[in-house]
């Protein structure tokens, strides 16, 4: 079975979870209260752990692929790595790839915003991941199944935590409700991309490794309706959705994010500590 598409799909998940972790970690030391500072940092670490597993898997897919397949994956392999003369590793994929080589969904690269923005983004993404991981743990691909099984427990807590914050802020004070509604207006157009498979994703679906992400739209909407009802929020009417992240076309925030995240490995390649 060709692995290029599976490699790209794994990267897509790895990139998305890495950036969720990166953005959340910007709260470390700046949380609204000590307890929530620790909570968001725990979540950031969970995401980082998930992305590590996925990058390790992606690297092994590349390293074990036949030369013809490697040529197809080449577009997504960091140029700098080729001078290292060693096997591809997780850090190369995370810290040396360029903007157009990243396949994360756009939602995950948005700046952290205020607390309302962060918890709403976390709610939307973990509600999606919950469905995805629950299916992934039954995947025919053993490695993805193992990652799904480990991650579903983490995400189920993230979903619970973020749902409660959405309810608290929505049904809170006038200001908290306003902030949450502002966040909703900014984030909503980035939620559609979650459920639209990229070309390589469709092939992985056809191979029977994953389910079609369109199937997750209905349960996701149901979850959003339930929580929004308690949070006294209106679910936005269907509107135009922004796409592109899964194909490597990113928002204006992406370059700054990568510059900060990758600065160390780009300045001191192969640095360890």
């Amino acid at each position, binding site marked *: 079975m060709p692995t290029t598409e599976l490699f790209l799909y794994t990267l897509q998940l790895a990139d998305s979870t890495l950036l969720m972790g990166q953005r959340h970690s910007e709260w470390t030391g700046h949380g609204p*209260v*000590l*307890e929530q500072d620790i*909570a968001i940092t*725990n979540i950031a670490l969970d995401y980082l752990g998930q992305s590590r597993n996925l990058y390790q898997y992606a690297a092994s897919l590349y390293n074990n692929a036949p030369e013809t397949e490697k040529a197809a994956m080449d577009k997504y392999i960091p140029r700098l790595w080729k001078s290292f003369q060693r096997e591809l590793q997780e850090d190369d994929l995370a810290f040396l790839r360029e903007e157009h080589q990243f396949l994360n969904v756009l939602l995950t690269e948005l700046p952290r915003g205020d607390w309302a923005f962060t918890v709403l983004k976390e709610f939307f993404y973990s509600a999606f991941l919950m469905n995805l991981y629950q299916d992934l743990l039954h995947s025919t691909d053993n490695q993805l199944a193992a990652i799904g099984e480990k991650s579903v427990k983490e995400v189920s807590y993230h979903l619970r935590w973020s749902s*409660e914050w959405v309810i608290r802020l929505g049904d809170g004070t006038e200001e908290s409700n306003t902030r949450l509604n502002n966040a909703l207006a900014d984030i909503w157009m980035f939620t559609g991309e979650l459920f639209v498979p990229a070309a390589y994703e469709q092939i992985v679906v056809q191979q029977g490794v994953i389910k079609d992400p369109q199937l997750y739209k209905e349960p996701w909407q149901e979850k959003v309706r339930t929580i929004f009802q308690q949070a006294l929020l209106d679910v936005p009417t269907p509107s135009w959705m922004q796409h592109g992240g899964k194909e490597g076309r990113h928002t204006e925030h992406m370059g700054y994010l990568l510059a900060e995240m990758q600065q160390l490995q780009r300045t001191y390649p192969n640095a360890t500590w």
Partner: protein
Amino acid sequence: MNQTIIKYYYGDYGDKEMPSGAGQHSPVANEWPLWEVFIRSKQGLDHKHVGSLHAADARMAIENARDVYTRRQEGVSIWVVESKYIHASNPDDAESFYEPANDKVYRHPTFYDLPDELTHM
């Protein structure tokens, strides 16, 4: 030209946390209530007091306790109770409370004759 430099402290609250009380600092109105946290470890039979934290309600207190006090697998069960419901003895009462027990050695089970066969006591 006047430049105002604001130094931000933990939490970036800005006006609320400005030094020297220049901000509108009203801790009682702004802070969540304090909760005491009790954790039962895997091997333990009892919940032990591990510390306290702030939370808006019981549900948030349990989740905060999970995030703050069980990061290294310290426990399998959490109790929280709002600190205001805990009544404590007064340190000033220490003399009358505890000292009378000092000379009552017979309250310890040390006056029994043990059979020689009993070795693990």
